[in-house]
């Protein structure tokens, strides 16, 4: 879908770094959502990207809100719109991984459990990038950040947010990747047709935080999926899994070697990550195979 810059709901002049993935996520999401949308942004890179007072880089209303409140604030906007008869207005909560995986998990859980009619997009750059690359629970295992130095990199695997949302029986959960913009906009469009809480987890490369040159932003994001590090799939009603992009099963080392944040890894550590990735991928395949399509909930 081609649009003129003046028709896009995000304007140039925003304050994102060169090659910012999170900015692309917003752009693709709004291309699908259209202008009848209210965006709720907790503390995250987008607090800055949206521009300082008295400006905005979006042509839809934004409610900037506290770090941990995306789920609750989106719920509040939803309630206020509904009571005013504006059920057709989309409410988009747009949060980073810190605001989703960590500090905002509670209010997101609350919103998902109440099945609020919102679309929640987490643009995941895998650390607190806005504050200067501190680890979050979305930071991948063994990655360097400014709080997980390469002498003591991040221990333990990345939190699986989709599983958490699926456990809430959210009607629609999906992962996406900025390298596949059409898949992302299609998922947002699909989310718009489903009532309840829709959660879309989008891998969003951060050139300064991942220690990559800005032009590699998309390439590295794409590798994440083709190496099975970040599979692209949907979960309907918390149960039915569907993988959307068939990965090329490239060795994970290709992905890791492309980024400065993994530069310190030894061959043994890469092997360990490969095993974990293989294991997780197998589990995902099993989930897809054993989905409960035919086991409808009793009405």
């Amino acid at each position: 879908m081609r649009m003129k810059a003046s028709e896009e709901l995000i304007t140039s002049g925003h304050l994102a770094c060169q090659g910012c993935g999170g900015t692309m996520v917003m752009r693709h999401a709004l291309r699908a959502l259209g202008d009848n949308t209210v965006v709720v942004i907790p503390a995250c890179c987008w607090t800055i990207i949206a521009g300082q007072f008295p400006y905005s880089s979006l042509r839809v209303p934004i409610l900037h809100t506290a770090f941990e409140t995306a789920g609750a604030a989106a719920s509040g906007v939803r309630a206020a719109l509904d009571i005013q008869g504006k059920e057709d207005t989309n409410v988009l909560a747009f949060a980073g991984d810190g605001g989703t995986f960590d500090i905002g998990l509670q209010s997101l859980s609350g919103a998902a459990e109440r099945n609020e009619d919102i679309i929640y997009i987490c643009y995941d750059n895998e650390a607190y990038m806005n504050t200067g690359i501190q680890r979050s629970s979305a930071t991948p295992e063994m990655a360097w950040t400014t709080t997980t130095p390469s002498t003591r990199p991040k221990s333990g695997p990345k939190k699986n947010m989709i599983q958490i949302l699926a456990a809430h029986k959210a009607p629609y959960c999906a992962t996406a990747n900025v390298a596949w913009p059409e898949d992302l906009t299609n998922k947002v469009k699909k989310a718009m047709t489903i009532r309840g809480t829709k959660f879309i987890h989008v891998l969003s490369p951060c050139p300064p935080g991942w220690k990559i040159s800005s032009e590699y932003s998309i390439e590295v994001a794409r590798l994440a999926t083709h190496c099975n590090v970040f599979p692209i799939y949907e979960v309907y009603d918390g149960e039915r899994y569907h993988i959307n992009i068939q990965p090329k099963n490239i060795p994970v080392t290709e992905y890791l070697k492309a980024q400065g944040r993994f530069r310190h890894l030894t061959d043994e550590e890469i092997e360990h990550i490969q095993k974990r990735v293989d294991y997780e991928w197998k589990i995902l395949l099993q989930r897809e195979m054993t989905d409960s399509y035919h086991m409808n909930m009793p009405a």
Partner: protein
Amino acid sequence: MKKVLMGNHAASWAVKLADVKMIAAYPITPQTQIVEELSEMCGSGELKAKFLKVESEHSAMASCIAASSAGVRAFTATSANGLALMHELLHWASGARLPLVMVNVNRAMAPGWNIWADQSDSLSQRDTGWLQLYVEDNQEVLDTVLQAYYIAEKVNLPVMVCYDAFFLSHTYEAVDIPEKQAVQDWLPPHARENILNTKDPRAFNGLVMPDVYMEMRYKLQQAHEEAVAVVKEAGESFAKAFDRSYSTIETVYCDDAETVLVTSSSTTSPARLVVEALREKGMKIGLMKVRLFRPFPVDDICQVLSGKKKVVVIDRNISFGKGGIFADEIRGAIANDPQAPIIFGYITGLGGRDITPELVEDIVMEAEKNERPERLALWKGLKS
């Protein structure tokens, strides 16, 4: 229509009369019955509002802020730890200039766990930019919640209505419930500019650089200063409509008093009895109830207290390391008055301990006896 209502239900009735459109709630004793009643009202359809059963007070305030930003009247209620959890967002509500109303049923802070009356919870939120009103009885609860919306929407600031746990919250009193139509005639419908509007898309609460942040804070302070008059005006117009009058403070026998007893909330009721009794005994004593704590009605208070010999302040709260907070505020307000009285600040009734007329009289007589207070924070009622 008169009904016998507990204080909490008086608050619920006010919310219904104010035609609030969005209520977010999380349970905490002693506030819970407010939202239980509202939940019933929404369930039965007598109140057409969204009722959001959030997972924390923090989210309650976050969603109220959001709903208010989207242009509807919102309400929540809490107490003690719940209010403390909201702390960050209280700044958001005032900084965003939102006309929210919240009831805080004053309860002691843990630990140890204590669910009984104590004002330290709301007074800890003194600097968050909210207006705070402390009320004495159940009728005032209902009337003040209504006035709170009136005031909030005139000054674009959030208002907290505070009353004591159990002494009001769970105590039944006869409450005159105004007619819905009368309330609608008095309280203008909620209509604000500067809301989330897809037809005029704006970004709210974004990044503010040092070059204008201070000016915006100045405007917030200005709004507080102007709110004193608005509170009075609200009380006056409310009196015209409903025949019950309210202001920033209330005084009894203060004109010729040499000693003025200062109270707030339910402590005022035993104090009234004591002051009546002492007047009958010929003591030149008056009573000042402070209803509006933020903005602090400095002029009104100084006008009453200037030239008095002694002022005795009873605080059911404490700012540790200093003392009673009302006493401290009054000292600060009157410090530059050349006719400033001697101020005795008493701390008592913490954590729900009864403040009986005998205790109040004890305090007054002790202050009467001493020329000056022995120390800044005088404690009364401690086990001997």
